[in-house]
């Protein structure tokens, strides 16, 4: 019987029919999705922290309004994604708990500090750029609620990248100090941005299974290459450079060659030893714990109101 369900399920996926929450699905598919969607949601929520750092210090009212809107969008993206994950049977509080206890992870990029205003530009250009590269194909992922959430996210994300590039473009026309600041930010964020695509492709036969489920449609390395190709051209418009001496156009491949990523650093950050891992998680936990009385009070008030209404009826 299970085998039949499995076959019907795969047949739907093959025919590009979206899987919806109440449809039968392999348990492993459900768990893979819960993990991937919730980690994605956590990344959006934690991702507010490095940028939130600069809201009060944005150089103009225009920039402040933009940054506020962007950070608010990220909260929204986190909520769309949590809501998609919840359709798979996990509760919101369980996901928060997994984040706060370190059981679930978020994108390692947010464990780096935002040291200057130019970092706001680079995060928009590179970090959001890398995210978009990954998220656009996710709009066609096989699980309906995830795909729909991603469509919404992608619509909004494009402004994030453009505002970031604009910040850098303005700095590139600025004083020598401003140009130095922008180049420094690019130097610090370039490699962590490449790491955002995750570890190198694994040649294991299990890869075939997950591609077969169409949860994801491109491999990490494919997307990373695409990202390098795009950025290597865009950086020329800014008149800055990417900090990679091996970055070179390869006529034969039709792609840019690029240097080796420091995977040791990547795994160190993932395992909690990045520059800001502790700070990020502490900020998140503090907000959760100190907000507990507000959540309880709102629920108590709602229950009281409901009872009063019942009594009056």
């Amino acid at each position, binding site marked *: 019987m299970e085998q039949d369900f499995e076959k019907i399920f795969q047949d739907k996926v093959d025919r590009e029919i979206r899987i919806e929450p109440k449809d039968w699905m392999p348990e492993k598919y459900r768990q893979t999705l819960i993990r991937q969607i*919730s980690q994605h949601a956590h990344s959006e929520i934690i991702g507010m922290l490095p940028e939130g750092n600069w809201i009060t210090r944005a150089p103009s009212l225009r920039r402040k309004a933009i940054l506020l809107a962007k950070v608010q969008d990220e909260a*929204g993206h986190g909520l769309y994604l949590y809501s998609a994950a919840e359709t798979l049977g996990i509760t919101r509080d369980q996901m928060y708990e997994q984040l706060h206890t370190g059981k679930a992870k978020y994108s390692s990029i947010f464990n780096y500090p935002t040291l200057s205003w130019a970092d706001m530009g680079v995060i928009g250009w590179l970090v959001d750029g890398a995210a978009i590269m990954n998220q656009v194909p996710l709009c066609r992922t096989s699980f309906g609620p995830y795909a729909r959430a991603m469509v919404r996210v992608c619509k909004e994300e494009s402004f994030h990248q453009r505002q970031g590039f604009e910040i850098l473009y303005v700095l590139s026309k600025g004083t020598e100090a401003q140009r130095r600041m922008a180049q420094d930010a690019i130097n610090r964020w370039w490699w962590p941005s490449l790491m955002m695509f995750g570890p190198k492709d694994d040649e294991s036969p*299990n890869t075939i*299974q997950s591609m077969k489920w169409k949860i994801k449609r491109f491999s*990490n390395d494919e997307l990373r290459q695409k990202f390098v190709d795009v950025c290597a051209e865009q950086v020329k418009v800014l008149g800055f450079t990417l900090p990679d001496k091996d970055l070179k156009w390869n006529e034969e491949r039709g792609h840019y060659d690029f240097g080796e990523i420091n995977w040791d650093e990547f795994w160190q950050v993932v395992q909690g030893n990045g520059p800001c891992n502790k700070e990020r998680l502490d900020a998140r936990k503090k907000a959760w714990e100190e907000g507990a009385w507000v959540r309880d009070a709102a629920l108590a008030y709602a229950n009281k109101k409901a009872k009063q209404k019942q009594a009056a009826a």
Partner: protein
Amino acid sequence: MSFQLHKLYYGDYGESKNGAADISTQQTNKAEWPLWEVFIRSKQGLDHKHVGSLHAADAAMAIENARDVYTRRMEGVSIWVVESKHIHASNPDEAEALYDPANDKAYRHPTFYDLPDEVKYM
């Protein structure tokens, strides 16, 4: 049927390293705000359409949250919220029995009927 996934994706560093491998999907927390489904009318004259869900203590808060989460770019002119537990849905396993009988009733569609070309405006 169990599969082992070792493929690693963006924002997903695998189960062995740190992923939430043993995800339990039991309802445990009673203090969680209830879940609400959100429906938005994108403009006057159109139907409300389901856009997603959110948590809120009561209906008024659900509408306020829905405004912030789902209408930051003028996506709507009207919001409906309904507590998710009040939604009743058809069973996808019964889809065949429910909808198949409509397949062989092509005569319910206007294209089923052959009319001479001279007939206009019909």
